[in-house]
């Protein structure tokens, strides 16, 4: 019942805040958002899940399963539960939401009740995404995330907010549709062997040899491959993977700070989480067969994303593009499909959530004060805003993978996992991807030097002063968390390992017959991209 | 007995005449008349096939059709009247305030 309780608190809180006047909403929503944190931390402490939620031999924590409805051959359930992958993500969600709400106190000065209500709605949707284990329940939450996000960007965003909001909205919605088709291609390929759309049932059915039948003249392996790439195309948008990333910088730049925090911190993880759950748990053999293509996406995302970040002048764009780069590491780890690859990818989801959150918050504090985010418009801010500057320095170094901060652990695990992975040229490709850590250092160092250091100069008609406490507290909290995870990664990795270990024991059940699939795949991915 | 193909050809001809009228004439009343022709083409079929099939269903149905055609005309005339009142014309192509 804990998950329902979390959802309930968020939803009831959201409704209450919608109905109450603006003057209560900031503080009330902060108070309400503390409850899910307490709840999720309690859950974290009492977590008793074993194994991977989707695979055999697992025990889910906080599981609920009730009949929902049936469609044709399939029974749908309301089925939620947590394993070692989803539990940390839920804690991440609750914590980041509260910090985001806190950081909204300064910049959000109109239509507050709507803003904070939507933030709580968003939190509920995100918790649902990570907890759901039946396809349609998951999908409802997955799509539900878009709605508050659309408003949050569209109403409270920057000058081009309408463009960014609709772009985000349509782009990710198309992706969902593409993914949906891929998923059901796979489900129909399973034929009568499943009667539900429960993700565990599907994953377990797929692990049986010869489970997938041919569809529409496509041999089973092609069905799986096409399904894999359609789903990949769908999730790739959310991650985002180059070349379907262009909604992200626009969305980030236009979104207000608290929303950017959630967007980068949690929303992007939906994509990688789904990749982990769907593509890589369902079809590990396809992932291995096409590992080179997938790694190519990862490597291109890392390097190209980093290069793009290097070319930006807007601090938020820098962080946004570097997210593209960082999420490339997650893909790399997933494709590696080793314990450290998958575990590192999951760890990176958490870690990147915290670090990008920190940087967006930091940039937000600067923006609140200076009303500009352009690198060239300011310098020497460390002089007037030492704590904020310190936080940004900390965040930047965390992003660069400084040891004893969480980013290092995540990236190191991903690299280790990917270096020894089974796909061809794994060491070389890993090494290429790792070069991202140099580029990332480049742009963050340049950005820091030009904005924080040097002679103080910002053209404002008022005095630049230190940020207020409620702006700084989230920064400090995040830094503490980042260092904690970076120094004692076991507090999270132990749990992650429990859920990841069974995945690595999945063996390729079917020998892939490589035929003319490559063409079909290219077409299906391109189609997905074009759509 | 006249083979039913002949009736079929006749009804098709009547139907096409009606259709032609609809496509070419712009007067709303003639439009209505053309529709009546088309319905009557159906009626010819019903009656003819009724004989051929040896049941009366078709004939009964054609009665229904005639009745309905009358009702349709009643409503239609009403609409054409208000059309005239608003547009001062019964030309169906004058009323194009809504398009695209």
């Amino acid at each position, binding site marked *: 019942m804990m998950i329902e309780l979390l959802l309930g608190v968020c939803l009831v809180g959201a409704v209450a805040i919608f109905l109450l006047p603006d003057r209560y909403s900031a503080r009330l929503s902060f108070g309400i958002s503390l409850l899910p944190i307490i709840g999720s931390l309690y859950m974290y402490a009492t977590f008793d899940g074993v194994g991977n939620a989707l695979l055999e031999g697992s025990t889910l924590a906080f599981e609920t399963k009730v009949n929902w409805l049936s469609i044709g*051959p399939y029974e749908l359930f309301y089925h939620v539960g947590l394993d070692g992958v989803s539990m940390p993500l839920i804690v991440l969600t609750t914590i980041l939401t509260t910090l985001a709400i806190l950081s909204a106190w300064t910049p959000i000065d109109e239509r507050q009740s709507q803003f904070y209500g939507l933030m709580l709605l968003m939190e509920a949707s995100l918790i649902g995404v990570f907890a759901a284990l039946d396809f349609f329940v998951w999908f409802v939450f997955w799509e539900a995330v878009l709605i508050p996000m659309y408003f949050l960007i569209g109403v409270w965003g920057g000058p081009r907010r*309408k463009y960014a909001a609709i772009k985000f909205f349509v782009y990710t*919605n198309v992706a969902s549709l593409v993914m949906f088709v891929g998923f059901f291609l796979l489900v129909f390929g399973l034929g009568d062997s499943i009667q539900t759309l429960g993700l565990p049932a599907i994953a377990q059915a797929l692990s049986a040899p010869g489970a997938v039948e041919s569809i529409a003249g496509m041999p089973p392996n092609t069905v799986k491959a096409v399904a894999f790439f359609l789903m990949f195309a769908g999730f790739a948008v959310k991650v985002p993977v180059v070349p379907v990333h262009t909604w992200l910088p626009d969305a980030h730049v236009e979104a207000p700070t608290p929303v950017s925090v959630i967007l980068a911190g949690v929303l992007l993880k939906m994509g990688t989480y789904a990749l982990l759950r769907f593509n890589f748990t369902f079809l590990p053999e396809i992932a291995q067969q096409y590992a080179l293509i997938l790694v190519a996406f990862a490597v291109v995302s890392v390097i190209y994303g980093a290069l793009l970040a290097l070319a930006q002048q807007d601090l938020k764009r820098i962080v946004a593009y570097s997210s593209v780069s960082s999420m490339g590491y997650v893909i790399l780890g997933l494709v590696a499909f080793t314990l450290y690859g998958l575990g590192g990818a999951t760890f990176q989801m958490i870690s990147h959530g915290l670090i990008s959150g920190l940087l967006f918050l930091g940039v937000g504090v600067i923006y609140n004060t200076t009303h500009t985010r352009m690198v060239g418009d300011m310098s020497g801010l460390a002089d007037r805003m030492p704590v904020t500057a310190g936080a940004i320095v900390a965040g930047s170094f965390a992003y660069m993978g400084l040891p004893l901060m969480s980013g290092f652990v995540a990236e190191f695990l991903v690299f280790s996992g990917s270096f020894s992975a089974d796909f061809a040229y794994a060491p070389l490709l890993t090494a290429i991807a790792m070069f991202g850590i140099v580029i990332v250092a480049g742009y963050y160092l340049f950005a820091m030097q030009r904005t924080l250091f040097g002679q103080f100069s910002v053209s404002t008609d008022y005095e630049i002063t230190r940020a207020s406490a409620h702006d700084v507290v989230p920064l400090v909290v995040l830094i503490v968390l980042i260092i904690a995870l970076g120094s004692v990664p076991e507090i999270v990795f132990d749990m992650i390992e429990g859920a990841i270990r069974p995945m690595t024991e999945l063996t390729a059940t079917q020998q892939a017959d490589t035929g003319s699939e490559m063409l079909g795949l290219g077409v299906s991915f391109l189609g997905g991209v074009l759509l | 007995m006249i083979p039913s193909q002949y009736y079929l050809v006749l009804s098709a001809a009547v139907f096409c005449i009606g259709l032609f009228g609809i496509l070419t004439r712009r007067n709303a009343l003639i*439009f209505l008349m053309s*529709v009546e022709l088309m319905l009557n083409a159906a009626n010819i079929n019903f009656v003819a*096939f009724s004989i051929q099939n040896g049941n009366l269903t078709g004939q009964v149905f054609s009665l229904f059709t005639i009745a309905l055609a009358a009702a349709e005309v009643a*409503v239609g005339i009403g609409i054409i009247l208000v059309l005239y009142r608003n547009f001062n014309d019964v030309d169906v192509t004058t009323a194009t305030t809504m398009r695209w």
Partner: protein
Amino acid sequence: MSVATTIMTPTTLTASVSASNQPLQLGLGSYEGIAPMIVLGLTALALFTVDSVYPDSTNNTLLSGLTVVGSLIALVITGTQLVTGVESTELFSGQLVVDEMSLFFTFIFTSVTALIALASHEYIGDREYQGEYYALVVLAAIGMTLLANSNSFATAFISLELASLPSYALVAYLKDNRGSVEAGMKYFLIGALSSAVFAYGISLVYGVTGSLLFTDVAATLTEGIDGSLTGVLGIGVVMILGGVAFKTASVPFHFWAPEAYEGAPAPISAFLSSASKAAGFVLAFRIFITAFPADAIAGIDWVLAFQILALVTMTLGNFAAATQETVKRMLAYSSIGHAGYVLIALGALTGAADQSFVLSAGMIHLLVYGFMNTGAFLFVALAEHWGIGRTFEDYNGLAKKAPVACAAMSIFLFSLAGLPTGGGMLSKYFLLLGAVNAEAYVLAVGLIVNSALSLYFYSRVVKAMWIEEPASDLTIDGYPTGLYAAIVVAAVVTFLLLPALAIFSDPALTAGSGLF
């Protein structure tokens, strides 16, 4: 498969009497099944009575209330039967049939009728001919309900006309409004043409099969017909398809729809685009699945025809909607687009998959659509009532003045777009799932493209209401109770259909599988 008979032909009667449905053959049978129609009929009579007693009365509340109460009673009866489940029962010698399908659609019709009657309370205000207005609405509802129960081309044609004729009049109800009149004219002319095509198609089918009863037609076709008649039958089938397509506003029989929806009083637009469309679909389901089973009529690939129609309809509807200037016309085109979606239910009957499910998905979509689309049009009615204009820009900043209504509208629009603010999400994805299941990948791709586009234009309204700044002179006068109530009810139901869809999806599944 039982071969029913007509009372007119003793020769065939003796030839093919089947024991199973004997007790109901000749009598009226149980009235339970047609109780909703009777209630609606009584409501219509009551309305006429009131109108004739007080011909000059403009007591809107009484008339509207009567309609609402009548349709609600019918709704409750239908709902009860639907939830408890019914046996498929034929009435009037097989002319009518009462089964889960008919009840399901009756539920849609009665609920839409109740909603628009409620909403018309303020919308009609103190205009003339109110009695006629409500009576025509109820009569059209009876026509639709009958259509859902039709089991023969004869009843189908008559109920189709019964549903259509009042609609023509209702569209032209604002008889001093050029748009309304023009819309009525176009609707009527295209309708007349289509019904002629429909009648002619029926005559050809009758000629080939010798019967008008769906089950008889199917039986004859299953036995096989002379190969030389395939062409005649085929033309008949396609023309019948045309007649149905008119009712569902499918391309190329859709031309009336944008104008009719735009010109008609907004509640009537809601009525037509939700209930009337559903009526067209129930007719299509019955005719094509019961009378023309796809495996029985080799050479007449109506599934392909529906696939073409589905693709063209959804594409035209959505693409044309994308660049509209007025909200109402956008909704009109979107309604065409949704017709295209539901046509997938028929286009996906390729025999490749579990067929009943796809059909059920279509039905579920129509049900949800009945609420969300009605709600959206009623919001337009509200805007028209306030007189704030028709374009997207005119809606700018409306949420500041009327947050509840705008929230409801957002629920409708997002649900229409397939986002989880309502059951529309599930039903649309069920259709997509059906298309994939049927290996109709072209339809799936079409649905994806159109769905994406639709999100764009639906969100334009949302953007106008919530994101744009209001024009300085935006004022709204009053919060009309009936309209508001109708909108809020529609919104609540739309939303509840997401978690509680099981209440209706199970009957829909039963209904869908009952046809095969």
